Structure formats: C-alpha cells, structure tokens
C-alpha cells in the first residue's frame, strides 16, 4: 500500500537510527550482541539502556501523564523496530507496558504518578498474573490479599512472569473473594516491601528468550494499602480482560519484528547462495517459501495495524479482533520462520554464521510469543465463544460498520483508550463486511484492476467459506461439549483467517485510489495476501507466477538491516512499502 503522503520521520525511525546498524557488531543493538547475550543467558541490559536513553520510557507513558504515548500504532511500530534486533529486550520493555496498562486504564492519579516515576527512572515492572499451578486458569489464582486493620496483606507466589528478578514494581493479581468478582489488582512497589516480604525466585532457564528475567516472586505478608488497589476491589478480572485485549494486539509486534529480520536474512541468503549453478532464490520451491513469508508479513501487518486503530476508535470490536490478531499473527510469523529455515538449510541451526545466527534465536524467541497474554487455545476459545453471535448478526444483517480511519493510509489524533469504552464481547464483526465491499467495488469498478478476475474469485471464496463456517456454527454450537472441543477451535482458526482476509481487502480498498504503485493498483498486493490466507485453508500446489515475482522483487528492494538506521529508507509502515 502507498506510504503516507507526509514522510516525516516516525518515532520508530528515530529509534532505529539511534540504535545504529544491526550488522555492526560493536553496537548494543547488533545481532551479534543479541546472540551473545542469549548464549550466555544474560539479560540485554545494554540494549534496554540504549532504548531508555533514547527516550523509550516516555513512549510507555500516556500523553495525559506528560509522556508521548498517544497511539497504539506508534507503540506497535516502536516495538516492532526493536524486535527486529532483539526480542528479549523488547519483551522486557513490553512487560513494562503490560504491567502499566491496568494503571493507565483504571488507576488513581497517585498510582499513575508512581508508575510514571518508576518508568522514567529506567526501572522494570512485572505483570504478576500467572502462577505455577494454574496457568491460564486465572480464576484459580492462589495469591491472596486479606483485609487487615490498615489495608491488605498479600501472600503467595507468582511464577513464569517476566522481569521477575529485577522488577521495582508489579501489578499483582490477588484473590480477595470468590468467583469472577473475587480478584483484585494491586500496584505494589518493591521499595515499600519489608525484609522477606518480596522475594524474587531464581531465574527460570528457558529455551526461547533465554536472557529474560523470567521467574517468580514470592510475596509473604506483604503490606498493601487501600491506595494500592487498582480500580475497585473485585474489579481485577475486568481490568485484566481489558488490558489483555490491548496487549494481545501489541504482542503481534514482536512476531512481525522477528519475521522482518528472518525474512530479510533468508532473502539475502537466497540471493547469494548458489546451488546447481544458480542462486537458490531462482529455485521455485525457495521462491515459493520467500513469497509466502512476504505475504504472511503483509497480512500480519494489515491486520495488526487495523487492530491498533480499532482499539482507539471502535473498542467494542476489540474483544474479537484482539483474539484474532493474537492467534493469527504469531502463528503466521512462526510458520513463516519455520518455512524459511528450510531455505536456510544447515545455516538455520549453526550458531554464528549468517548474520551472527540471529535467525535461530528469533525462531526460538518468536515461538514463545504465541504463549504471551493467552496461548493459542485460549484465544481460539475466545473466538469460538464469539462465533454464534457473529453468525447470527450476519444472518440478520445487523453488522456494525467501521470509520474510514481504521484502514486509511494514515490516521492521526485518534482518541486515547478509555477503560469505560472497553467491552468484554463483540456483538458483530465490523471488519468482515470489507469482503463484500471489495467484491462490490470490483464488480462495478471504474478502475482498471489487472488482477480483477482472480481477486473476485478469492473474495467470493472467502465469503462462501464464511457462510460455511456460520452454517457449521449454527449446527453444532448448541451442544455442551462443543466449546472446549477441537472442532470449535478449528472453526475459530478458520474464522481468524477470514477476518484477516477482510482486513486486507478493506485496507486495499481504502488506499488504492491514492496509490500510484502498480503493485497496489493492479490488485497484486491483495491477490498475494488473499491467496496466502486461502492457501492456508485450502492447500494446493502453487507454481510461482508474476504476482510472486513482483513480491520477491519488492522483498529484494526492502531496506536490509544495513539501511534500517537510515531513516529516509523507513516509511510510516516500517519500510515495507505498503
């Protein structure tokens, strides 16, 4: 899609320039530094410090608190930019935002000041939700907060949480009663804890994000004040569910950043590696994998960018859309990286070598992002729960619409998040009508769209597939076991693809008129995206054709890491040219 008309350097481009060339191994933001820290299971302090020195903390603090955080899209771009170099550092800083969001959404002025102070001081925060025995089963939370004469006393152990070892503060989910109103959130700081009341457990040794400060915190008779309660007592679950809707969108930035790097590395390797007297990029199966990965990157970006904006302008769409983003984007990125590993062959498992071995690290790290803020089964469960209502709304033609800003090339000055506007359920899928709109536009089109025929076929197939999903949902959703069975999850997974197809179609429709890029105006970009999504639902042989070759040419022109620090090469969308 066309780049924004104004080419002002974005915050992400500034950050990228500050971090320097990732292939310059002297720099903290280099692949070399990332791989070395990982191998030594060491936290990437230097890179975090560079990002903080650049001013990252301000981007984690909303504008109303005097910070620069005003747009999730910008936050996403910053996170994606840093993720291209090192997910370990990004995820640690991302945990600060995750831990901070409940306070920004529902905290008191005093809590917001405390939080802003910690962030500006370069401190780390922990989102203390999970526990060793309960995993995603939040209602079983074992950490308790009991009433005392002067406030609360917190006891119990949080586990498998990020920044555990070095957190100066934490948003802690504690049980204060029974049932869905039995959880309360606290903003607790370590400096207020007495001796032995806040004990970090040893770092967990992990397979991905090896340098992370993953671990646990044991709270023992920790005194908390009433003023430390975020929102109201008993409101914890609701605030958590609101927070996770937002962060589930942002998690996609880790996955896309990782895929950016892996695709650039694989593309570079494929153009230089020669086998059988030619560059392997000319081998059709290699070209297929590169083109597919490029397409999956485009799809992920289209869906995630729309979700960032939806959070701010149509928050009632976020419960569904955030689950679709969180399930699908890490999935696309992980599948792509696995596929690119086949292109890299033995290089995919050598430590060092191509770009200091960053691809292998990214592969492990990116796989972990699928677990964050609700694993695939959790998000598929959320989508499955929505399906009956979505089908009903479509059948009754009661589907909401979306403002143009969601898919436009640029959208400035959107209203900031407000906890009061966030919902727990989406009643109808307002993204999905983008398919019908695209079909209609193509049918009565005055624009010459070279790929019109194929586009129509693809869009019509997606609509028909939606009808099949809706039928299946109507047939089976009544039975009790359905909700927790694999068939429901499969339908949810299929639906997430169709939702993404609609997001891509809407983006194309909204932007093609102002575009002069033939890849966009010909429809090739949308063909690429839809083919990939449809191809995942209906696998079949796919010989490389002109659309793929155009995609590969664009991949070849995408600025590589040697140019990432050159902000002229980076556009609003992070340099991907759409």
């Amino acid at each position, binding site marked *: 899609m066309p780049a924004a008309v104004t080419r002002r350097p974005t915050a992400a481009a500034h950050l990228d320039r500050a971090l320097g060339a990732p292939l310059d191994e002297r720099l903290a933001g280099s692949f070399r530094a990332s791989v070395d820290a990982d191998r030594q299971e060491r936290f990437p302090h230097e890179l975090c410090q560079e990002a903080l020195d650049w001013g990252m903390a301000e981007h984690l603090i909303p504008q109303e608190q005097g910070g620069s955080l005003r747009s999730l899209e910008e936050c996403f771009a910053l996170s994606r930019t840093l993720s291209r170099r090192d997910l370990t550092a990004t995820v640690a800083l991302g945990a600060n935002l995750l831990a901070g969001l409940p306070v920004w959404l529902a905290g008191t002025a005093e809590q917001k000041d405390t939080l802003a102070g910690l962030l500006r001081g370069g401190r780390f925060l922990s989102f203390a939700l999970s526990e060793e*025995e309960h995993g*995603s089963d939040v209602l079983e939370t074992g950490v308790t907060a009991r009433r005392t004469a002067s406030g609360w006393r917190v006891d119990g152990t949080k586990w498998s949480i990020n920044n555990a070892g070095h957190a100066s503060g934490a948003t802690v989910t504690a049980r204060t009663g029974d049932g869905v109103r039995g959880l309360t959130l606290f903003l607790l700081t370590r400096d207020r804890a007495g001796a032995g009341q806040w004990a970090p457990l040893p770092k967990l040794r*992990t397979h991905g994000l090896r340098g992370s400060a993953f671990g646990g915190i044991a709270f023992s008779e920790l005194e908390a004040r009433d003023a430390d309660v975020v929102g109201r007592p008993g409101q914890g679950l609701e605030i958590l569910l609101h927070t996770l809707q937002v962060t589930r969108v942002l998690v996609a930035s880790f996955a896309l950043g990782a895929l950016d790097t892996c695709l650039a590395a694989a593309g570079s390797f494929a153009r230089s590696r020669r086998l059988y007297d030619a560059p392997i990029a000319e081998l059709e199966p290699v*070209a297929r994998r590169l083109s597919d990965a490029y397409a999956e990157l485009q799809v992920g970006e289209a869906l995630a960018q729309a979700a960032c904006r939806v959070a701010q302008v149509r928050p009632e769409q976020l419960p569904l859309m955030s689950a679709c983003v969180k399930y699908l984007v890490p999935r696309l990125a992980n599948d792509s990286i696995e596929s690119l590993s*086949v292109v890299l062959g033995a290089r995919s*498992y050598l430590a060092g070598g191509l770009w200091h071995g960053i691809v292998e690290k990214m592969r492990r790290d990116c796989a972990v992002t699928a*677990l964050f803020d609700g694993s695939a089964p959790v998000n598929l469960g959320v989508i499955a729960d929505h399906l009956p209502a979505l089908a009903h709304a479509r059948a009754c033609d009661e589907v909401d619409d979306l403002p143009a800003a969601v898919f436009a090339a640029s959208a400035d000055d959107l209203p900031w998040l407000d906890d009061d506007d966030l919902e727990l359920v989406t009643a109808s899928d307002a993204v999905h009508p983008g398919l019908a709109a695209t079909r209609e536009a193509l049918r009565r089109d005055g624009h010459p769209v070279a790929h019109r025929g194929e586009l129509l076929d693809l869009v019509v197939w997606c609509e028909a597939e939606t009808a099949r999903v809706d039928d299946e949902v109507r047939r089976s959703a009544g039975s009790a076991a359905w909700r927790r069975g694999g068939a429901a999850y499969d339908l949810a997974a299929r639906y997430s693809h169709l939702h993404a197809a609609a997001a891509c179609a809407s983006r194309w429709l909204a932007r093609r008129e102002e575009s002069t890029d033939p890849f966009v105006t010909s429809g090739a970009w949308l063909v690429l995206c839809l083919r990939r999504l449809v191809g995942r639902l209906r696998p079949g042989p796919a010989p490389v054709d002109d659309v793929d070759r155009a995609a590969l040419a664009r991949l070849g022109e995408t600025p590589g890491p040697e140019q990432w620090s050159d902000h002229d090469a980076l556009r609003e969308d992070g340099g991907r040219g759409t």
Partner: protein
Amino acid sequence: MLPWGTADDLEAFLGDPLRPSGPLTYAQAVADDKDEAFPRTSLDALQDWGYPAHQVPEALGGRLASLEELAALSRVLARRDPAVAVVANSPVAAAMPVWLGGSPEQRDAVARAVLDGRYVALGLTEEQHGADLVAGEVTARRTGDVYVVDGVKWLINNVRLARFLCLLVREPERSGLRSLTLLLVDLDALAPSSYELLPKIRTHGLCGADVAGIRLRGAVVPVSASVGRPGRGLELVARSLTVTRTLVPALSLGALETALRCTVDFLQDRRLYGGTAVDIPFVQEELAAAYLDLTVADTVARCCVRVMQVLPELGPVSSAVAKFVVPHVVEARMRRLSTLLGARYFLREGHWSGIFEKLLRDARLFSLFDGSEPVVLSALAAQLPCLQEDVDPRCADGVFRGGHAACGPLADLRFETVADADPVTAGLQDVRTTLLRAHPDDPDLATALDLLRTESDDLRTQAGTGLDPRSELGQRQAERYARLFAAVCVAREWQASVDACGDAVPVSWLTAGLLALLRPGERMPRSTAEQMFAALMIEHPAPPARAGSRGEGRTLCPQQ
C-alpha cells in the same frame, strides 16, 4: 513377547531415564546439552553394553544382522538423548559406503576399528556447495599409485574423533557425474602436516555432537583407498544414503515418543478449570492425534526399513518416503504438543528435567540429515514414473508381516540408485478390495480408500509428464507420492497383521491413519479420538500406577 529382545535388553540396561543423574537419563542429556559437551558418560555406558558391535555387520565380526533391529536400538537411545543416538550410530552411517562397496581389506580394517570403539566420519559436504555434491571442490590428483588430496570438507560429524574418514573427492581428469571418487582415508596413517582438523562448529540442536571440518593440503592417500571403483563415488554415496535415510526416522520417532509421554505425564497432573487438563476435550483430541501420528509414522518407518531388507531395489523410493514423511510429521507434531505444555515447553528445567525443549531442537535436525526435505523430495519426484510400471504387488508381501527379518550381509543388498517399479503402491487395489469386503458398512473407511485411489490415479496419470523434480510442482507431486506410498504401507500392514494374528487395532484407527497422511491437519472423528485417547491412557497410566519407560514401539499388530 516383545518384538525386539535386544532393544529391550538395552532399555533394561539403561534403566529409568527419570533418575536424577547417570548415563542416558534426561538429566544427563539436558546437562550435556547445556554445556555443549560431547556426551562421554552416556557413550561410555553404551560401550560397556556393547553398542559398537551393532554398528558392524555380523559377517565382519559385529552383531548387525538386521536393519530393523538397528532402528529399534537407535530409537531406544533417541528416546533419551537424540544427540547420543546420533553419535553412537555415526559409525554405521559413516561406514555404510564401506559396508556396501568396500574391499574385504577395507571392511575388515573399518570393522576392527569400530569394534575397538573408534569412530568413522563421512566427508561429503562443503561450505559453499551444500547438497550440490557434484560441485564439490576437494580434489584428488592421481600421481602413480597415490592420490594427492586438497580442499576443505565442512559440517562433518565426528571428524575430529575419527580413525577413518570416507571422503568424497573430485578427480580433475574425470568429468561429469563420474568425476567423483570416494576414498577411505586412515587418519592414523595420514601425515599430520598434510591435514588440519577445524574447530567444532557450534549448533543449536544436537549441541553435544562434535561437528567440524577438515582441511587437506597435499594429503597423500594410496590409490587402493578408493572405495569401489574410482569415478563411482557419487553412485556409492547415493546408495549409502538410501540405507541411512531409512534409519533416520527411528531417531525422530524416539524423540516424539518421549515428547508425548512427557506431555501426557504433565497434563495428567495439571489442574485446570476445575478438573485435570486431560479432561478437556481439546486436550484429549490433541493427544489422540499425537498418538495417531506416532503410530502411523512408526508403521511407515518400519515398513520402509523392511523394504530395504526384503525388497532393496525399491529402496530409492522407500528411503525417500521414510525420510520425508517421518521427520516431517514428527516435527509438526512436536510443535503442536508444545502448545499443550504451555509455558513448560520452553523451560530448560523442572518437569522431566526440561527434556522437551531439547527434543524439540534436536528433532528439527533430522529433516536435514542425509538429505534435506527439498533434496529428498527431488529424489522422489524423479521416481514418479515407477507408478506407471506394471508390477506384481505380491513382490512386496514380504514387507508387510509384523515379524522380524535379518537382512543378510549389507554387501549383498542388490539395489541401484533408482527404482524401476513400485510393488508397494501397486498393491492398493488389492488391499482396498479386501478391506471393503471385510468392512462393507463402514462409509468412513470407504471414503478414505476412495481418496487413496483418486490420489493414486492422479499421480499415475501425471507421472509421465516430465516434471522438473526441483520445481514447485515437482516437489508437491513428490510429497503426494510420499503420502500415498506411506498410506498404502499403513493399509497393507494393517491387513497383514489381521491375516497374521487375526487381530489389529480398530479399523477406525486405520481410517484415521490414512486420513492423517492424506489430509494432514484434518481432525479425526470425536469417537475415534476418544478411543485413541483411552488407549494412550492405558499405555501411560496416571500415577501411581505409572511404570518406568518401556521398550516397545507401537505397531498395528497388538503385542502378544
């Protein structure tokens, strides 16, 4: 009685893999991996048990009499530590050209070295050329009765520990496909100044394995070192890979088996949403599908090993099928299992010492070994015309019978680098008829068998169209062929076990198995999933009834 006495004996010797320490325990495997250490403790224990003898054919004083038994032994090791399995089996893999085509003197010398606990390495690849062996730049110039060898071979397992190195070299005076010669280099006899062992290459899987390279500078090797005829190196390597590709699946299966047990063990104790995790229908279905994959992949692997023994001329097809299907299915399944483990999957400690994440990394390498997925699929694409040859399917009956067969001396295996006909797949029509007759009222089975027939007809029609094996379509057709061949193996083996012991797993499992191969990712019927889940739970009971690790693999024929 279990089918593999020797494998059971090894399993019993190694003991409980969950012990806190000791050779071939999970704890040891994880510790060696973390230190990137050569797994000395575990290998020493294997030496004590006599493992090296199983790397040497019986005729040469060893105990290798059956590829099927060797696969079973490898699997016992891979269940505990795939890195140890790779190192312990590297002598047979690297010496395969010698077993197949070496002179009596060469065979004796290598056999003695292996029985003495020495290693053998196979130097094929070069940094710039990877799978493109014909482009290799290591040269051997013939002067009188010696070769002078120069160049660098790269990514060689155990080269730094080896006594013998099978080295693929180019003879500059020869050209084309007949320009490569395989030399058996005795590193003990090579002038130390004429070669240099390069540093260990650090890898992200099989971290303990010693993978490195060798630089040769004017190394002098006698002409008699040629294994087989000079100029026939590529052919010999292709034939060796045919055998070793058949053996790699056992390693993948071992890894999946432990990954599944480890997952089940965790989920049985995991309390979620008011019950245990294994009460959740989705979890049950995923575990059932994993169990099905293991059963199917195991059957395919076994059948392909037996092809090598009783129908070696089909080896070029069956080895590619096994090498593609089994690692592919196993890797995909392990990724799905990791979803069930949640945060546990990526912990390098805790539950079962954190073996799962090591298995995940190690198992990924098996699709690269001895020919990566694209290489193997290209080889198979070139074999598609086999489908058009008329051949008596009964030629392959010996493959499907549940029993155990010795393979005779490896040197006597008669096969070429390409096969002419495919009597395994040719049996589809007969087995389909038999199955439909025995199960006339089973629409699911009929649908699966129809799908199988359609695939077969489609592929046969298109087999003669001269596809480029390296094109996308060529690769996809090869994948379809692999899945078809594998599915016919599963059907014929199921029928053979009914014929042999009058019993087999339920026919609904067969249907599910065929569909798992032909329509990967499609969910099996809920009722079949429930049956398979129940069977898995019987095999892996919840504590405290849980026994230690057992030695048997899964088969379509019930254990007696």
